[in-house]
């Protein structure tokens, strides 16, 4: 085949990488101010820039990074810092467990990379991809395309925060785009709307636990909401069958 032979149609898998990358953009815009804040925290903490910036690709989770950086600035015990990271990032285990079932046909390096990139917005995109009915291989590409864009964008946001962190006007509501996007995903999904009781329980428990220090609110809400949903399904005749 000549190199001049036109390619008819992009294969679904390669197109899905791009689709996932584009789908990630609203979430990346929403997460960007958080990354900038982390960069500004690194710059203002007095610690060396390299370990601070490296939390972006080693820990790779905004809440855990912020807690770690705050603890390092306060000279907290390493064990306390690790306990905080464990509590905050425990939800990532659940995310990977939910996504990994779809990754069995992929190569080992792909699965390790995909798991390493799991974080809240990536899980959002992954869940969307698998619910879209585009086929497992294409949905995997959709997930990884979005996850890679998020990872690159996150590192750049932290660098931006280190350089010009305090210049971003605090009045810009860009940080609220991500929660509004999450709400829109629930509101426009008929299956999610039908599960409103566990969702409401998760939201209320998260709100109640938000006054507890240690960033445990979302983890508590997710655990309670899933437990409520699991009990409900186990008790229903359909769930037992």
């Amino acid at each position, binding site marked *: 085949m000549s190199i001049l032979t036109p390619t008819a149609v992009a294969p679904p898998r390669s197109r899905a990488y791009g689709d996932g990358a584009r789908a990630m953009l609203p979430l990346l815009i929403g997460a960007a101010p958080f990354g900038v804040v982390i960069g500004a925290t690194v710059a203002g903490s007095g610690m060396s820039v390299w370990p601070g910036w490296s939390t972006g690709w080693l820990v790779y989770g905004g809440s855990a990074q912020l807690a770690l950086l705050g603890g390092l600035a306060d000279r907290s015990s390493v064990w306390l810092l690790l306990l905080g990271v464990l509590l905050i*990032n425990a939800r990532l285990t659940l995310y990977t467990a939910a996504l990994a079932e779809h*990754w069995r046909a992929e190569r080992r390096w792909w699965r390790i990379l995909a798991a390493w990139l799991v974080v809240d917005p990536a899980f959002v995109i992954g869940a969307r991809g698998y619910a879209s009915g585009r086929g497992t291989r294409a949905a995997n590409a959709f997930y990884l395309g979005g996850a890679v864009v998020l990872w690159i964008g996150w590192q750049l946001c932290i660098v931006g925060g280190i350089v010009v962190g305090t210049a971003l006007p605090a009045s810009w509501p860009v940080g609220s785009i*991500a929660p*509004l996007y999450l709400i829109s995903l629930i509101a426009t999904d008929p299956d999610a709307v039908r599960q409103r009781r566990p969702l409401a329980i998760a939201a209320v428990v998260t709100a109640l636990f938000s006054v507890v220090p240690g960033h445990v609110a979302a983890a508590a*809400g997710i655990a309670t909401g*899933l437990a409520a*949903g699991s009990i409900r399904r186990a008790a229903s005749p359909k769930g037992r069958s």
Partner: protein
Amino acid sequence: MTAWPAVLAAGALSVALRLLPLILLSTGPPPAWLRRVGALIAPVVFASLASAAVAAAMVSRGVGGAAPEALAAATALAIGRISGRRWLSVSAGLVVLVGLTVTPGA
């Protein structure tokens, strides 16, 4: 204390939390409880994260101070339910948020 040991240990812990399910679920089928809640994980996580964002505003600025975020979230939910359009839901929420944020006294 140099920051590197804590950063490296926290990084190793975070990677382990992500990779653990790959190892545990590589051979056998997923556990029954995971299958039971599988379809619930995404919407429950979304609800918790959205709620956490609104609650964080309430904790830092008080209930009244977080009114723009709470009303924007309620608007996005209502418009999304009525219209079924994601972009309209987000846009409506943002309009409410910006409108209330720039209104003096809001």
